[in-house]
Protein backbone atom coordinates (compact mmCIF):
# COMPACT_ATOMS: atom_id res chain seq x y z
CA UNK A 1 0.00 0.00 0.00
CA UNK A 2 2.70 2.45 1.07
CA UNK A 3 4.64 1.46 -2.03
CA UNK A 4 1.70 2.44 -4.26
CA UNK A 5 1.34 5.79 -2.53
CA UNK A 6 5.05 6.53 -3.01
CA UNK A 7 4.81 5.40 -6.62
CA UNK A 8 1.80 7.62 -7.16
CA UNK A 9 3.59 10.64 -5.74
CA UNK A 10 6.63 9.95 -7.93
CA UNK A 11 4.44 9.71 -11.04
CA UNK A 12 2.71 13.00 -10.20
CA UNK A 13 6.06 14.73 -9.67
CA UNK A 14 7.46 13.40 -12.95
CA UNK A 15 4.35 14.52 -14.84
CA UNK A 16 4.58 17.94 -13.23
CA UNK A 17 8.29 18.21 -14.17
CA UNK A 18 7.50 17.34 -17.78
CA UNK A 19 4.68 19.89 -17.95
CA UNK A 20 6.81 22.61 -16.35
CA UNK A 21 9.76 21.88 -18.63
CA UNK A 22 7.61 21.93 -21.76
CA UNK A 23 5.85 25.09 -20.68
CA UNK A 24 9.16 26.88 -20.15
CA UNK A 25 10.52 25.65 -23.48
CA UNK A 26 7.40 26.92 -25.23
CA UNK A 27 7.61 30.33 -23.57
CA UNK A 28 11.31 30.72 -24.32
CA UNK A 29 10.87 29.67 -27.94
CA UNK A 30 8.07 32.14 -28.45
CA UNK A 31 10.26 34.93 -27.08
CA UNK A 32 13.23 33.85 -29.22
CA UNK A 33 11.08 33.75 -32.35
CA UNK A 34 9.78 37.20 -31.49
CA UNK A 35 13.35 38.42 -31.11
CA UNK A 36 14.32 37.15 -34.53
CA UNK A 37 11.35 39.11 -35.93
CA UNK A 38 12.73 42.29 -34.38
CA UNK A 39 16.11 41.49 -35.88
CA UNK A 40 14.62 41.18 -39.35
CA UNK A 41 12.92 44.57 -39.03
CA UNK A 42 15.99 46.30 -37.60
CA UNK A 43 18.09 45.00 -40.48
CA UNK A 44 15.45 46.21 -42.91
CA UNK A 45 15.60 49.66 -41.44
CA UNK A 46 19.39 49.68 -41.67
CA UNK A 47 19.07 48.83 -45.37
CA UNK A 48 16.34 51.37 -46.09
CA UNK A 49 17.95 54.41 -44.53
CA UNK A 50 20.88 54.81 -46.96
CA UNK A 51 18.33 54.79 -49.82
CA UNK A 52 16.30 57.58 -48.28
CA UNK A 53 19.42 59.57 -47.46
CA UNK A 54 20.60 59.18 -51.05
CA UNK A 55 17.26 60.30 -52.50
CA UNK A 56 17.11 63.33 -50.24
CA UNK A 57 20.70 64.17 -51.05
CA UNK A 58 20.01 63.95 -54.78
CA UNK A 59 16.94 66.09 -54.51
CA UNK A 60 18.70 68.86 -52.60
CA UNK A 61 22.20 69.72 -51.61
CA UNK A 62 21.50 71.27 -48.22
CA UNK A 63 20.46 69.97 -44.79
CA UNK A 64 23.72 68.04 -44.66
CA UNK A 65 23.71 68.06 -40.89
CA UNK A 66 20.50 66.07 -40.56
CA UNK A 67 21.71 63.60 -43.17
CA UNK A 68 25.05 63.12 -41.47
CA UNK A 69 23.32 62.53 -38.14
CA UNK A 70 21.10 59.87 -39.65
CA UNK A 71 24.03 58.11 -41.33
CA UNK A 72 26.06 58.14 -38.11
CA UNK A 73 23.17 56.82 -36.05
CA UNK A 74 22.54 54.14 -38.62
CA UNK A 75 26.17 53.01 -38.61
CA UNK A 76 26.20 52.90 -34.82
CA UNK A 77 23.03 50.81 -34.87
CA UNK A 78 24.51 48.41 -37.42
CA UNK A 79 27.59 48.04 -35.20
CA UNK A 80 25.38 47.24 -32.20
CA UNK A 81 23.63 44.36 -33.95
CA UNK A 82 24.09 41.18 -31.95
CA UNK A 83 25.26 43.04 -28.86
CA UNK A 84 22.11 42.05 -26.97
CA UNK A 85 18.86 43.85 -26.24
CA UNK A 86 20.32 46.53 -23.98
CA UNK A 87 22.99 47.94 -26.32
CA UNK A 88 21.02 47.39 -29.50
CA UNK A 89 18.06 49.10 -27.85
CA UNK A 90 20.02 52.26 -27.10
CA UNK A 91 21.52 52.46 -30.59
CA UNK A 92 18.18 51.78 -32.25
CA UNK A 93 16.49 54.42 -30.13
CA UNK A 94 19.03 56.99 -31.29
CA UNK A 95 18.42 55.90 -34.87
CA UNK A 96 14.68 56.28 -34.43
CA UNK A 97 15.17 59.87 -33.30
CA UNK A 98 17.47 60.65 -36.22
CA UNK A 99 15.14 58.99 -38.70
CA UNK A 100 12.22 60.92 -37.37
CA UNK A 101 14.23 64.10 -37.88
CA UNK A 102 14.79 63.10 -41.49
CA UNK A 103 11.13 62.26 -42.04
CA UNK A 104 10.19 65.59 -40.47
CA UNK A 105 12.62 67.29 -42.83
CA UNK A 106 10.98 65.59 -45.80
CA UNK A 107 7.63 66.86 -44.59
CA UNK A 108 8.80 70.47 -44.61
CA UNK A 109 9.99 70.46 -48.23
CA UNK A 110 7.09 70.26 -50.69
CA UNK A 111 9.33 69.28 -53.60
CA UNK A 112 10.65 66.35 -51.56
CA UNK A 113 7.20 65.34 -50.45
CA UNK A 114 6.01 65.26 -54.05
CA UNK A 115 8.87 63.00 -55.13
CA UNK A 116 7.51 59.50 -55.79
CA UNK A 117 10.67 57.78 -54.64
CA UNK A 118 10.59 59.72 -51.41
CA UNK A 119 6.91 58.91 -50.88
CA UNK A 120 7.55 55.25 -51.33
CA UNK A 121 10.58 55.27 -49.05
CA UNK A 122 8.64 57.28 -46.50
CA UNK A 123 5.89 54.63 -46.38
CA UNK A 124 8.46 51.86 -46.14
CA UNK A 125 10.34 53.57 -43.36
CA UNK A 126 7.17 54.40 -41.44
CA UNK A 127 6.04 50.82 -41.76
CA UNK A 128 9.44 49.51 -40.68
CA UNK A 129 9.35 51.78 -37.65
CA UNK A 130 5.91 50.37 -36.83
CA UNK A 131 7.06 46.82 -37.38
CA UNK A 132 9.97 47.36 -35.02
CA UNK A 133 7.60 48.80 -32.43
CA UNK A 134 5.03 46.01 -32.84
CA UNK A 135 7.51 43.15 -32.87
CA UNK A 136 9.18 44.71 -29.83
CA UNK A 137 5.80 44.88 -28.14
CA UNK A 138 5.15 41.22 -28.88
CA UNK A 139 8.70 40.24 -27.86
CA UNK A 140 8.41 42.05 -24.55
CA UNK A 141 4.99 40.55 -23.87
CA UNK A 142 6.42 37.11 -24.59
CA UNK A 143 9.49 37.68 -22.42
CA UNK A 144 7.27 39.00 -19.69
CA UNK A 145 5.02 35.97 -19.58
CA UNK A 146 8.05 33.66 -19.81
CA UNK A 147 9.77 35.44 -16.91
CA UNK A 148 6.60 35.38 -14.84
CA UNK A 149 6.22 31.68 -15.53
CA UNK A 150 9.77 30.77 -14.54
CA UNK A 151 9.60 32.87 -11.37
CA UNK A 152 6.22 31.58 -10.27
CA UNK A 153 5.90 28.96 -7.59
CA UNK A 154 6.38 26.03 -7.97
CA UNK A 155 8.15 26.31 -11.34
CA UNK A 156 10.78 28.53 -9.69
CA UNK A 157 12.03 25.45 -7.78
CA UNK A 158 13.26 23.76 -10.95
CA UNK A 159 13.61 26.48 -13.61
CA UNK A 160 17.22 27.13 -12.58
CA UNK A 161 18.19 23.45 -12.63
CA UNK A 162 16.75 23.06 -16.13
CA UNK A 163 18.78 26.03 -17.32
CA UNK A 164 15.92 28.47 -17.87
CA UNK A 165 17.50 31.79 -17.07
CA UNK A 166 15.71 35.14 -17.12
CA UNK A 167 15.33 36.86 -20.48
CA UNK A 168 16.04 40.49 -21.14
CA UNK A 169 13.39 42.97 -22.29
CA UNK A 170 14.11 45.02 -25.38
CA UNK A 171 13.64 48.53 -24.16
CA UNK A 172 14.00 51.86 -25.85
CA UNK A 173 13.98 55.13 -23.89
CA UNK A 174 10.60 56.38 -22.71
CA UNK A 175 10.20 58.94 -25.49
CA UNK A 176 10.45 56.15 -28.05
CA UNK A 177 7.65 54.10 -26.59
CA UNK A 178 5.03 55.38 -28.97
CA UNK A 179 4.74 54.28 -32.53
CA UNK A 180 6.25 57.11 -34.54
CA UNK A 181 3.53 59.03 -36.29
CA UNK A 182 4.37 60.35 -39.71
CA UNK A 183 1.55 62.11 -41.44
CA UNK A 184 1.06 60.63 -44.88
CA UNK A 185 -1.27 62.70 -46.92
Amino acid at each position, binding site marked *: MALWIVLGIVVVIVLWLIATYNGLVGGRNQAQT*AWSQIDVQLKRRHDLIPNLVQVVKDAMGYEQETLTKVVQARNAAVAAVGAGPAQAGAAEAALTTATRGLLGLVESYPQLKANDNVK*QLQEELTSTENKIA*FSRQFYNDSVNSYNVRRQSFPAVLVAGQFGFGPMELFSMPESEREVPKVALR
Partner: protein
Amino acid sequence: MAETTNFVAAQAVNRRNTLILLAVLTLLAALIGYLIGWVLVGSSNPGYGDGPRGVPANSAGLVAAALMAAASVIWSLVSLAFGDKMVLGMSNATEIQKSDAPQLYNVVEEMSLAAGIPMPRVMILETEAMNAFATGTRPGHGTIVVTRGLLEKLDRDELQGVVAHEMSHLANLDTRYMVVVGVTVGLIALVCDMALRSLRWGSFSGGRSSGGSKGGGAATIILIVVLIIVAILAPLAARAVQMAVSRQREYLADATSVQFTRNPNGLISALTKLTEAAEPFPGVSRATQHLFIVNPVKEMTADTSSLMATHPDLAARIERLRNLGG
Protein backbone atom coordinates in the same frame (compact mmCIF):
# COMPACT_ATOMS: atom_id res chain seq x y z
CA MET B 1 -19.51 46.18 -18.64
CA ALA B 2 -19.16 49.56 -20.25
CA GLU B 3 -16.95 50.66 -17.41
CA THR B 4 -14.22 48.19 -18.36
CA THR B 5 -11.07 50.21 -18.65
CA ASN B 6 -8.46 47.89 -20.02
CA PHE B 7 -8.28 45.43 -22.85
CA VAL B 8 -7.08 42.51 -20.75
CA ALA B 9 -10.15 42.72 -18.53
CA ALA B 10 -12.35 43.27 -21.58
CA GLN B 11 -10.96 40.13 -23.17
CA ALA B 12 -11.49 38.09 -20.03
CA VAL B 13 -15.09 39.22 -19.73
CA ASN B 14 -15.74 38.46 -23.37
CA ARG B 15 -14.20 35.01 -23.23
CA ARG B 16 -16.30 34.16 -20.22
CA ASN B 17 -19.50 35.44 -21.82
CA THR B 18 -18.81 33.46 -24.97
CA LEU B 19 -18.18 30.30 -22.99
CA ILE B 20 -21.46 30.69 -21.14
CA LEU B 21 -23.31 31.25 -24.41
CA LEU B 22 -21.68 28.20 -25.99
CA ALA B 23 -22.64 26.08 -23.00
CA VAL B 24 -26.24 27.28 -23.27
CA LEU B 25 -26.27 26.42 -26.96
CA THR B 26 -24.85 22.93 -26.45
CA LEU B 27 -27.31 22.25 -23.66
CA LEU B 28 -30.16 23.41 -25.85
CA ALA B 29 -29.09 21.09 -28.68
CA ALA B 30 -28.77 18.11 -26.36
CA LEU B 31 -32.12 18.87 -24.74
CA ILE B 32 -33.88 19.04 -28.07
CA GLY B 33 -32.27 15.81 -29.23
CA TYR B 34 -33.39 14.14 -26.05
CA LEU B 35 -36.94 15.46 -26.25
CA ILE B 36 -37.37 14.54 -29.90
CA GLY B 37 -36.01 11.05 -29.43
CA TRP B 38 -38.29 10.58 -26.47
CA VAL B 39 -41.47 11.81 -28.12
CA LEU B 40 -41.00 10.35 -31.58
CA VAL B 41 -40.03 6.88 -30.43
CA GLY B 42 -42.44 7.09 -27.53
CA SER B 43 -45.44 8.21 -29.55
CA SER B 44 -45.02 5.43 -32.10
CA ASN B 45 -44.73 2.97 -29.23
CA PRO B 46 -48.28 2.02 -28.20
CA GLY B 47 -47.35 1.20 -24.64
CA TYR B 48 -45.61 4.50 -24.03
CA GLY B 49 -46.19 5.96 -20.61
CA ASP B 50 -47.31 2.67 -19.06
CA GLY B 51 -44.65 2.45 -16.38
CA PRO B 52 -41.65 0.30 -17.18
CA ARG B 53 -42.39 0.29 -20.90
CA GLY B 54 -41.70 3.98 -20.99
CA VAL B 55 -38.04 3.32 -20.24
CA PRO B 56 -36.94 2.38 -23.77
CA ALA B 57 -38.34 5.72 -24.91
CA ASN B 58 -36.02 7.47 -22.48
CA SER B 59 -32.98 5.66 -23.79
CA ALA B 60 -34.11 6.63 -27.27
CA GLY B 61 -33.85 10.21 -26.07
CA LEU B 62 -30.27 9.64 -25.00
CA VAL B 63 -29.46 8.05 -28.34
CA ALA B 64 -30.97 11.03 -30.15
CA ALA B 65 -28.97 13.46 -28.03
CA ALA B 66 -25.79 11.51 -28.82
CA LEU B 67 -26.70 11.52 -32.51
CA MET B 68 -27.14 15.31 -32.36
CA ALA B 69 -23.68 15.65 -30.85
CA ALA B 70 -22.09 13.36 -33.45
CA ALA B 71 -23.79 15.11 -36.35
CA SER B 72 -22.71 18.46 -34.95
CA VAL B 73 -19.06 17.37 -34.73
CA ILE B 74 -19.00 15.91 -38.25
CA TRP B 75 -20.75 18.91 -39.76
CA SER B 76 -18.37 21.25 -37.92
CA LEU B 77 -15.32 19.42 -39.23
CA VAL B 78 -16.58 19.61 -42.81
CA SER B 79 -17.36 23.31 -42.43
CA LEU B 80 -13.97 23.98 -40.90
CA ALA B 81 -12.26 22.22 -43.80
CA PHE B 82 -14.11 24.01 -46.59
CA GLY B 83 -15.65 27.06 -44.91
CA ASP B 84 -13.20 29.78 -45.89
CA LYS B 85 -12.94 28.60 -49.50
CA MET B 86 -16.70 28.91 -49.78
CA VAL B 87 -16.78 32.34 -48.16
CA LEU B 88 -14.02 33.67 -50.38
CA GLY B 89 -15.61 32.11 -53.45
CA MET B 90 -18.86 33.88 -52.63
CA SER B 91 -17.27 37.26 -52.04
CA ASN B 92 -15.36 37.72 -55.31
CA ALA B 93 -12.29 39.26 -53.66
CA THR B 94 -8.91 39.19 -55.41
CA GLU B 95 -5.64 38.47 -53.67
CA ILE B 96 -3.03 41.23 -53.82
CA GLN B 97 0.74 41.39 -53.60
CA LYS B 98 2.69 44.09 -51.83
CA SER B 99 3.21 46.13 -55.01
CA ASP B 100 -0.56 46.41 -55.59
CA ALA B 101 -1.27 48.26 -52.35
CA PRO B 102 1.95 48.76 -50.38
CA GLN B 103 0.40 50.60 -47.47
CA LEU B 104 -2.35 48.05 -46.89
CA TYR B 105 0.14 45.22 -47.18
CA ASN B 106 2.50 46.95 -44.75
CA VAL B 107 -0.28 47.54 -42.23
CA VAL B 108 -1.32 43.89 -42.35
CA GLU B 109 2.31 42.87 -41.88
CA GLU B 110 2.62 45.20 -38.90
CA MET B 111 -0.48 43.76 -37.27
CA SER B 112 0.60 40.17 -37.84
CA LEU B 113 3.82 41.07 -35.99
CA ALA B 114 1.85 42.66 -33.17
CA ALA B 115 -0.38 39.60 -32.92
CA GLY B 116 2.53 37.19 -33.27
CA ILE B 117 0.71 35.12 -35.91
CA PRO B 118 1.84 34.29 -39.45
CA MET B 119 1.17 36.77 -42.22
CA PRO B 120 -2.33 36.17 -43.62
CA ARG B 121 -3.27 36.56 -47.28
CA VAL B 122 -4.50 40.01 -48.21
CA MET B 123 -7.42 40.54 -50.57
CA ILE B 124 -9.31 43.51 -51.94
CA LEU B 125 -13.01 43.52 -52.70
CA GLU B 126 -13.88 45.96 -55.50
CA THR B 127 -16.76 47.98 -54.10
CA GLU B 128 -17.26 51.54 -52.97
CA ALA B 129 -18.83 50.41 -49.69
CA MET B 130 -16.48 50.56 -46.68
CA ASN B 131 -16.06 47.22 -44.96
CA ALA B 132 -13.61 44.45 -44.11
CA PHE B 133 -13.65 40.85 -42.98
CA ALA B 134 -11.36 38.02 -42.00
CA THR B 135 -11.71 34.33 -42.63
CA GLY B 136 -9.64 31.24 -41.98
CA THR B 137 -10.22 28.32 -39.70
CA ARG B 138 -6.63 27.28 -39.13
CA PRO B 139 -3.93 29.46 -37.59
CA GLY B 140 -1.50 30.50 -40.29
CA HIS B 141 -4.04 30.10 -43.09
CA GLY B 142 -5.99 33.30 -42.56
CA THR B 143 -7.19 35.84 -45.09
CA ILE B 144 -8.01 39.49 -44.51
CA VAL B 145 -10.29 41.17 -47.02
CA VAL B 146 -10.89 44.92 -47.22
CA THR B 147 -13.06 46.78 -49.70
CA ARG B 148 -11.68 49.34 -52.14
CA GLY B 149 -13.90 51.99 -50.56
CA LEU B 150 -12.37 51.37 -47.14
CA LEU B 151 -8.86 51.54 -48.52
CA GLU B 152 -9.52 54.86 -50.22
CA LYS B 153 -11.41 56.65 -47.46
CA LEU B 154 -9.40 55.76 -44.35
CA ASP B 155 -6.05 57.19 -43.35
CA ARG B 156 -3.18 55.02 -42.16
CA ASP B 157 -4.10 54.97 -38.46
CA GLU B 158 -7.73 54.16 -39.20
CA LEU B 159 -6.78 51.41 -41.63
CA GLN B 160 -4.47 50.03 -38.96
CA GLY B 161 -7.34 49.95 -36.45
CA VAL B 162 -9.59 48.06 -38.85
CA VAL B 163 -6.86 45.60 -39.87
CA ALA B 164 -6.03 45.07 -36.19
CA HIS B 165 -9.70 44.25 -35.56
CA GLU B 166 -9.63 41.65 -38.34
CA MET B 167 -6.28 40.31 -37.13
CA SER B 168 -7.92 39.88 -33.70
CA HIS B 169 -10.61 37.71 -35.24
CA LEU B 170 -7.84 35.51 -36.65
CA ALA B 171 -5.75 35.55 -33.46
CA ASN B 172 -8.76 34.78 -31.24
CA LEU B 173 -9.87 32.09 -33.71
CA ASP B 174 -13.28 33.74 -33.98
CA THR B 175 -13.75 32.49 -37.50
CA ARG B 176 -13.47 28.92 -36.24
CA TYR B 177 -15.63 29.71 -33.26
CA MET B 178 -18.46 31.13 -35.32
CA VAL B 179 -18.37 28.16 -37.68
CA VAL B 180 -18.96 25.79 -34.78
CA VAL B 181 -21.70 27.99 -33.34
CA GLY B 182 -23.29 28.35 -36.77
CA VAL B 183 -23.30 24.60 -37.32
CA THR B 184 -24.92 23.94 -33.94
CA VAL B 185 -27.59 26.53 -34.59
CA GLY B 186 -28.19 25.17 -38.08
CA LEU B 187 -28.50 21.67 -36.71
CA ILE B 188 -31.02 22.73 -34.10
CA ALA B 189 -33.11 24.44 -36.78
CA LEU B 190 -32.87 21.43 -39.09
CA VAL B 191 -33.80 18.88 -36.44
CA CYS B 192 -36.68 20.95 -35.12
CA ASP B 193 -37.98 21.31 -38.65
CA MET B 194 -37.69 17.56 -39.22
CA ALA B 195 -39.42 16.89 -35.91
CA LEU B 196 -42.35 19.12 -36.83
CA ARG B 197 -42.70 17.41 -40.21
CA SER B 198 -42.48 13.88 -38.92
CA LEU B 199 -44.84 14.74 -36.09
CA ARG B 200 -47.47 15.83 -38.58
CA TRP B 201 -46.92 12.63 -40.49
CA GLY B 202 -46.65 10.52 -37.36
CA SER B 203 -49.86 11.79 -35.78
CA PHE B 204 -51.81 10.50 -38.75
CA SER B 205 -50.23 7.08 -39.12
CA GLY B 206 -48.70 6.06 -35.82
CA GLY B 207 -51.25 7.98 -33.82
CA ARG B 208 -54.21 6.16 -35.32
CA SER B 209 -52.76 2.71 -35.25
CA SER B 210 -52.08 3.11 -31.56
CA GLY B 211 -55.53 4.53 -30.94
CA GLY B 212 -56.41 1.46 -28.93
CA SER B 213 -54.14 2.36 -26.02
CA LYS B 214 -55.83 4.78 -23.64
CA GLY B 215 -53.59 5.54 -20.66
CA GLY B 216 -50.63 6.66 -22.77
CA GLY B 217 -52.73 8.77 -25.12
CA ALA B 218 -53.14 11.88 -22.99
CA ALA B 219 -49.52 11.91 -21.84
CA THR B 220 -48.37 11.51 -25.41
CA ILE B 221 -50.52 14.40 -26.57
CA ILE B 222 -49.13 16.66 -23.84
CA LEU B 223 -45.59 15.67 -24.78
CA ILE B 224 -46.29 16.27 -28.44
CA VAL B 225 -47.66 19.72 -27.68
CA VAL B 226 -44.54 20.47 -25.62
CA LEU B 227 -42.37 19.25 -28.46
CA ILE B 228 -44.21 21.40 -30.99
CA ILE B 229 -43.73 24.47 -28.83
CA VAL B 230 -40.07 23.66 -28.25
CA ALA B 231 -39.49 22.91 -31.93
CA ILE B 232 -40.92 26.29 -32.88
CA LEU B 233 -39.13 28.30 -30.20
CA ALA B 234 -35.76 26.53 -30.03
CA PRO B 235 -34.44 27.64 -33.44
CA LEU B 236 -35.29 31.23 -32.56
CA ALA B 237 -33.61 30.96 -29.18
CA ALA B 238 -30.55 29.30 -30.73
CA ARG B 239 -30.36 32.06 -33.32
CA ALA B 240 -30.57 34.70 -30.59
CA VAL B 241 -27.72 33.01 -28.71
CA GLN B 242 -25.66 32.83 -31.91
CA MET B 243 -26.12 36.56 -32.45
CA ALA B 244 -25.18 37.24 -28.84
CA VAL B 245 -21.97 35.25 -29.31
CA SER B 246 -21.27 37.15 -32.50
CA ARG B 247 -21.69 40.49 -30.71
CA GLN B 248 -19.42 39.37 -27.86
CA ARG B 249 -16.73 38.43 -30.36
CA GLU B 250 -17.01 41.84 -32.02
CA TYR B 251 -16.43 43.57 -28.69
CA LEU B 252 -13.55 41.20 -27.99
CA ALA B 253 -11.97 41.93 -31.38
CA ASP B 254 -12.28 45.67 -30.72
CA ALA B 255 -10.51 45.27 -27.38
CA THR B 256 -7.82 43.01 -28.86
CA SER B 257 -7.34 45.49 -31.67
CA VAL B 258 -6.33 48.06 -29.05
CA GLN B 259 -3.96 45.54 -27.49
CA PHE B 260 -2.21 45.29 -30.88
CA THR B 261 -2.14 48.95 -31.88
CA ARG B 262 -2.10 50.51 -28.38
CA ASN B 263 -4.01 53.29 -30.09
CA PRO B 264 -7.82 53.18 -29.72
CA ASN B 265 -8.21 56.41 -31.69
CA GLY B 266 -7.52 54.79 -35.05
CA LEU B 267 -10.37 52.30 -34.71
CA ILE B 268 -12.68 54.86 -33.09
CA SER B 269 -12.18 57.25 -35.97
CA ALA B 270 -12.59 54.42 -38.52
CA LEU B 271 -15.83 53.25 -36.91
CA THR B 272 -17.08 56.83 -36.85
CA LYS B 273 -16.45 57.12 -40.59
CA LEU B 274 -18.16 53.78 -41.15
CA THR B 275 -21.19 54.98 -39.19
CA GLU B 276 -21.42 58.10 -41.29
CA ALA B 277 -21.06 56.25 -44.56
CA ALA B 278 -23.30 53.32 -43.58
CA GLU B 279 -24.21 52.43 -47.12
CA PRO B 280 -25.65 48.96 -47.58
CA PHE B 281 -23.38 46.57 -49.33
CA PRO B 282 -24.53 45.05 -52.61
CA GLY B 283 -24.18 41.33 -53.15
CA VAL B 284 -23.66 40.24 -49.57
CA SER B 285 -25.98 37.56 -48.29
CA ARG B 286 -27.13 37.04 -44.75
CA ALA B 287 -25.00 33.92 -44.66
CA THR B 288 -21.78 35.91 -44.44
CA GLN B 289 -22.93 39.14 -42.79
CA HIS B 290 -21.51 38.27 -39.37
CA LEU B 291 -17.98 38.18 -40.80
CA PHE B 292 -17.71 41.88 -41.57
CA ILE B 293 -16.41 44.61 -39.28
CA VAL B 294 -19.76 46.40 -39.59
CA ASN B 295 -22.94 44.73 -40.71
CA PRO B 296 -23.06 45.01 -44.52
CA VAL B 297 -26.72 44.09 -44.96
CA LYS B 298 -28.63 46.58 -42.92
CA GLU B 299 -27.90 49.95 -41.46
CA MET B 300 -26.81 49.88 -37.86
CA THR B 301 -29.00 52.09 -35.75
CA ALA B 302 -29.91 51.83 -32.12
CA ASP B 303 -33.02 49.77 -32.79
CA THR B 304 -31.25 47.20 -34.97
CA SER B 305 -28.93 46.36 -32.10
CA SER B 306 -31.61 44.01 -30.91
CA LEU B 307 -31.67 40.32 -30.17
CA MET B 308 -31.10 39.36 -33.80
CA ALA B 309 -28.23 41.66 -34.72
CA THR B 310 -24.87 40.15 -35.72
CA HIS B 311 -23.01 43.24 -34.55
CA PRO B 312 -23.35 45.52 -31.53
CA ASP B 313 -24.57 49.02 -32.15
CA LEU B 314 -21.67 51.08 -33.53
CA ALA B 315 -22.20 53.84 -30.98
CA ALA B 316 -21.86 51.26 -28.19
CA ARG B 317 -18.64 49.92 -29.72
CA ILE B 318 -17.17 53.41 -29.99
CA GLU B 319 -18.23 54.12 -26.41
CA ARG B 320 -16.38 51.04 -25.14
CA LEU B 321 -13.28 51.94 -27.14
CA ARG B 322 -13.34 55.41 -25.63
CA ASN B 323 -13.37 53.79 -22.20
CA LEU B 324 -10.30 51.76 -23.16
CA GLY B 325 -8.52 54.93 -24.17
CA GLY B 326 -9.40 56.78 -21.00
